[in-house]
């Protein structure tokens, strides 16, 4: 195992897949000469040249569509959005073209492509630049939606995404790029659609994904001091969702908190809770509680931003409530 950052893990996944398959190319704003707005593509232009690492104008809708066209006729594009906030401009190509092409063509045109970039809030970036989009994208049949929370998952899942024959939405945590973790040295893939038990526990399950995995782990550490044993299920893939992993854990702990970065209404957590009530109705000892961003656009002011975001304190309170401790 090597210790590397989430960013380095992504870079190495890109590098390995670019080296492995000439049909793979990376396209997006500032990905080449600038080495990436968040430096995920650092060094790739030098290594693979401008044919494979392509700087685009600021034209999200346009270059997402270019990716779709290239994928239709045999390439395997990796389209980088500088952040997913800007990908809103490209959603027509993602949703109306990429997600439906195979279906509309009766199976004739596959979409082996990845749309990737940082998702979610960072610090004080304000309302237009602090948004987590997984629930929107996971709503769409025809897409796969991944949200890695650790460097090892980031690498293994990105490699799988690039090798997948379907359009994969790959949501990176903007605040995760500098986080470190162990990453296997050998060439490895992580199965899309498989959740990961990040921590075993007995008393309550926290189902989460992406950036919130770190928060869940902190919560588990903190509650361990009070002899509360938390199990953390990291979904890793939002669509297709690993219902079995969720059910197995909740059947064991009989309690669940669902933690996500995005908003409450029609959020990812709403879907998780639906699966839980279907699969674990008789196992539950308490209603499931959700922790999420407050139902407001992200404010800029530091104190309001902190109050708006889901965090360890809110999650601990939710766990205690689910356990009838408060």
């Amino acid at each position, binding site marked *: 195992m090597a210790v590397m950052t989430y960013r380095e893990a992504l870079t190495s996944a890109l590098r390995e897949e670019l080296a492995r398959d000439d049909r793979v190319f990376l396209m997006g*704003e*500032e990905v080449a*000469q*600038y080495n990436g*707005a968040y430096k995920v593509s650092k060094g790739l232009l030098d290594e693979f040249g401008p044919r494979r690492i392509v*700087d*685009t*104008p*600021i*034209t*999200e*809708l*346009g270059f997402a569509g270019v990716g779709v066209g290239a994928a239709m006729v045999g390439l395997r594009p990796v389209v980088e959005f500088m952040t997913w*906030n*800007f990908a*809103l*401009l490209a959603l027509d190509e993602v949703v109306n073209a990429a997600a439906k092409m195979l279906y509309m063509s009766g199976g004739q045109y596959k979409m082996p492509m990845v749309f990737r970039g940082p998702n979610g809030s*960072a*610090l*004080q*970036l*304000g*309302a*237009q*630049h602090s948004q987590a989009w997984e629930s929107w994208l996971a709503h769409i049949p025809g897409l796969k939606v991944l949200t890695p929370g650790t460097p090892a998952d980031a690498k293994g899942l990105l490699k799988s995404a690039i090798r997948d024959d379907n359009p994969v939405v790959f949501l990176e945590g903007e605040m995760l790029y500098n986080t470190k973790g162990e990453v296997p040295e050998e060439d490895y893939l992580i199965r899309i659609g498989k959740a990961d038990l990040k921590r075993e526990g007995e008393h309550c399950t926290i189902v989460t994904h992406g950036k919130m995995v770190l928060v869940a782990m902190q919560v588990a550490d903190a509650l361990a001091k009070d002899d509360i044993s938390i199990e953390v299920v990291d979904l890793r893939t939002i669509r297709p969702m690993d219902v079995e992993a969720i059910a197995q854990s909740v059947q064991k702990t009989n309690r669940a908190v669902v933690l996500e970065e995005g908003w409450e209404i029609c959020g990812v957590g709403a879907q998780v809770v639906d699966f839980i009530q279907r699969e674990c109705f008789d196992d539950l000892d308490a209603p499931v509680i959700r922790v999420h961003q*407050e*139902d*407001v*656009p992200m*404010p*800029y*002011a*530091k*104190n*309001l931003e902190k*109050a*708006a975001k889901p965090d360890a304190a809110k999650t601990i309170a939710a766990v205690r409530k689910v356990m009838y401790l408060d």
Partner: protein
Amino acid sequence: MSAGAKPAKERKSAESARAEKPLPEKISGTDVAMRKELLRSMLLQRRFEEKCAEAYALGKIGGFCHLYIGQEAISTGTMSMLRPDDYVITAYRDHGQALARGISPRAIMAELFGRADGCSHGKGGSMHIFDSATNFLGGHGIVGGHVPVAAGVGFAIKYKDGDQVCVCFFGEAAVNIGAFHEALNMASLWNLPVIFIIENNRYGMGTAISRSTANEDVIVRAKGYRMIGESVDGQDLFAVRDCVGRAIERGRKEKRPTLIELRTYRFMGHSMSDAVAGTYRSREELEENMKRDPILLLHQFMHEHDELSEGELSKIDDDAKAAAQDAWDFADASPEPAPEELWTDVLAESES
């Protein structure tokens, strides 16, 4: 006008300079008093933003912060031609334009500090300065997103039979985004009084215009939409005023839109997290362009025409510095927004 970029020491005495260059009564509608006011406006922006950089380094300003330093002749030149009832809309590089439009430095700095007395009550931040009192319709964070919004403002002006104009600022990199084209087409098709101003500082983040734009001569895009297009030196305050003035006439009288390209240069990095030079643009290029500092150019012009003593200049500059410091002190003393503010302004109070 040619300001002549000679250092002060080499300059001839003010007397002989004046004899050589008889000064017309008015230059693009300005007299001496107004030129002093314009200089004051630009210096205020400069000193204010120098303070912003300081505050950012101390963590008092967070998030993305894009400075306008180097482009002040555009904000000052344009705003000085507008009426109070005209409208202004812009992108995230909005502090200079907000100041030039007359929003109080205190309210802007408090916004940047995320405080209750900020012009958006701390909810917007650097990229989202709004002020309904001056018809300042915001700083917007998505490249090109506000350009059709400007067309909508023009639509409403015409709908209500008004004679205002709406000025819309954006960078040259925004001309490649679909929203720009859609907006220009509608503005021309429907005869909307909108002035679209491309601030061509030659880089969209780290990408030079030559690497992003098939035809670097961005003003030709006006033609595609049967619109008058004008391209002038954006470092020359008088040229900016004249050009914007013509566009305003066209907007008020003929209800026709105009596309303007103002050629400029940003003296700082794209945002506070971007290097000033050395990566995508050379230090030499930066220094070459800094010789055409719009403040320096106006100052030199006034100095050559003996309109401004050193004492007056220092006074204007000291006042600008004091205003920036005052804004800082005010922002620092302003409270954080009350916790319940998190929940306000999500929806308008409306029962229907």
